[in-house]
């Protein structure tokens, strides 16, 4: 949070953040495909920004593992193997389990209410097969926030930092591959189990349901990735 009397450089970081967010969304949304080279000049022109904020944004994306910058060759959207994905999910499982274990001592009502709301919203999507793809981006956004909130329940800021980094890789790969409709139904059911455990304040059920969800989500993601382009995106 910014203090009213603190002095912070405004212009550059803000533009970089905006660029970062736009590019990130393009990658997560699948508009920029894994393996695709980013045309820096074109992006500069399209966004109407100079090289410096774009560079800052790309560096930040590289830290998150979303792009790979190869000097003299170019900047590419990262390609993931099923192995990368499996690792991502293992990290997620370990972190989420630890976060939830400590979370139940916190009993943060506001957070619980927000999570309940997020899960209810996710459960309301995909009622129609014809339009479900349109809802996928929104659903995935909710999903991401819900998982981050569960980490936040632990009150451990470092864990959240590590998590956001690990989560993104799995996230983009899953997203880029596009879920099938039946994947979304399974995800919704798994979420309902988590929501029920949250609602009941049942710590054991929460740990089991969250773990089950991530394990199954990981399997689905690896399976989808393996089906695409012979194992690599």
């Amino acid at each position: 949070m910014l203090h009213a009397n603190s002095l912070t450089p405004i212009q550059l970081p803000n533009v970089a953040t905006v660029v970062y967010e736009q590019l990130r969304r393009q990658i997560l949304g699948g508009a920029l495909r894994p393996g695709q080279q980013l045309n820096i000049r074109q992006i500069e022109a399209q966004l109407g920004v100079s090289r410096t904020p774009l560079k800052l944004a790309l560096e930040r994306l590289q830290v998150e593992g979303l792009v790979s910058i190869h000097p003299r060759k170019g900047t590419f959207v990262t390609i993931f193997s099923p192995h990368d994905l499996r690792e991502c999910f293992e990290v997620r499982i370990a972190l989420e389990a630890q976060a939830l274990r400590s979370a139940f001592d916190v009993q943060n009502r506001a957070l619980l209410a927000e999570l309940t709301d997020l899960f209810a919203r996710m459960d309301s999507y995909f009622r129609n097969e014809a339009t479900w793809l349109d809802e996928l981006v929104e659903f995935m956004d909710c999903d991401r926030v819900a998982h981050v909130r569960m980490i936040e329940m632990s009150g451990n800021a470092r864990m959240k930092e590590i998590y956001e980094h690990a989560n993104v890789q799995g996230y983009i790969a899953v997203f880029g591959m596009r879920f099938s409709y039946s994947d979304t139904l399974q995800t919704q059911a798994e979420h309902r189990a988590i929501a029920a455990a949250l609602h009941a304040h049942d710590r054991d059920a929460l740990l089991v349901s969250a773990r089950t969800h991530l394990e199954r989500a990981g399997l689905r993601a690896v399976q989808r990735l393996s089906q695409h382009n012979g194992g690599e995106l």
Partner: protein
Amino acid sequence: MTRVPVVVGVGLTPFAANRVDASIRDLVAEAVLACMEDAGLLDLKAVQHGLASYESDHFNRQMTLGAILHDALGLTPLPNVRVEGGGATGALALRTAWAYVQSGLCESILVYGGEMNGRSVSSATANGLFALSADADWEMMVGGTYTAFYAAMMRAHMQRYGTTEAQCAHVAVRNRRNARLNSFAQKPMDLTIDDVLRSKPVAEPYKLLDCSLLSDGAAAVLLATEDWARAHGTRFRERPPVYYCATGCGTDTMRLGDRYPEITNFRGKRAAAQAAYAMAGIGEPLLEIDVAELYDSYSGVEIQAVEDLGFVPAGQGGAAVASGIFDADGYLPVNTSGGLLGRGAPVGATGIAQAVEIVQQLWGELPAGRQVANARRGLTDTHAGIGTICVVNIFERRD
């Protein structure tokens, strides 16, 4: 020691359109012998109770058929009881047997049932006889037949949720395709969605290939306490124990017109499922059930069922079914036997045969392609009329 019944053995006859070679007694005896052999039970008289399951005196052209079958099987002077609950007869029979064992009335009980629904009468007569199980004063007299009631329900579902005929057709195609891996099935077929959509209209939106079959057949299941099973079933120790762990029942009004607030779904089925899930400790059925036999009397009924059983939220059934989530290689395979559409539906045997499929799945004894990997918990969904009596039974492997 728990009194939750275990399954000691199961037996079936092939389901067929016309078993000219056999009477109902022969069919039931065939299923019971198969069940004894499956259980490794040497002496049928060791069983403590009989339970006869059949729906119709008319189709079988025999009243007091329970006593006749009991006698024909050589079970006298053991106690016997007959259970009837329309289309849900077989499942209600198992539920009754569950209570008999749990209550301590007996340590073991043989549930046997069958029906001659095939060509013993013409289709028109069959429809007329089935219509007799609707409200004869207020529905049958104005031409109400079950196909018409089911069609009206599905039409309401389509209007409210946008469910399509192609989604229904997916069920008809898949269940008959599943039947191809079941040598006891009546109607294994390799169809396309278009084949179903182009088949003869019966009662819109249902076409001929959306409708289940009239069959001759029988089924038997031997239930007992675990102690009794260990002492008498010579094969019991060879297999992972399968418990009949939960049962739920719900009902609805006889007349479709009396239903409120809607006729898109089966209220009694929701009640039955909730009761069974509470008993089994199931919170999220799509995740916690590995395999299920659903009552697909018409293709769209399976779509309604996956919603009422809580596999997916209301309105999502059509899309869920079409996504392949319930196919043999899907997340929760249903009707691996072929269901009523593919395997057939001799009413008194249907609910028992559904249980037979689930138990064999849990034992892991089915052929590749039909066997669901690592199935540990299975469900049967059976109903009478238009969901007038609904029974949900749950079986669980515990090893």
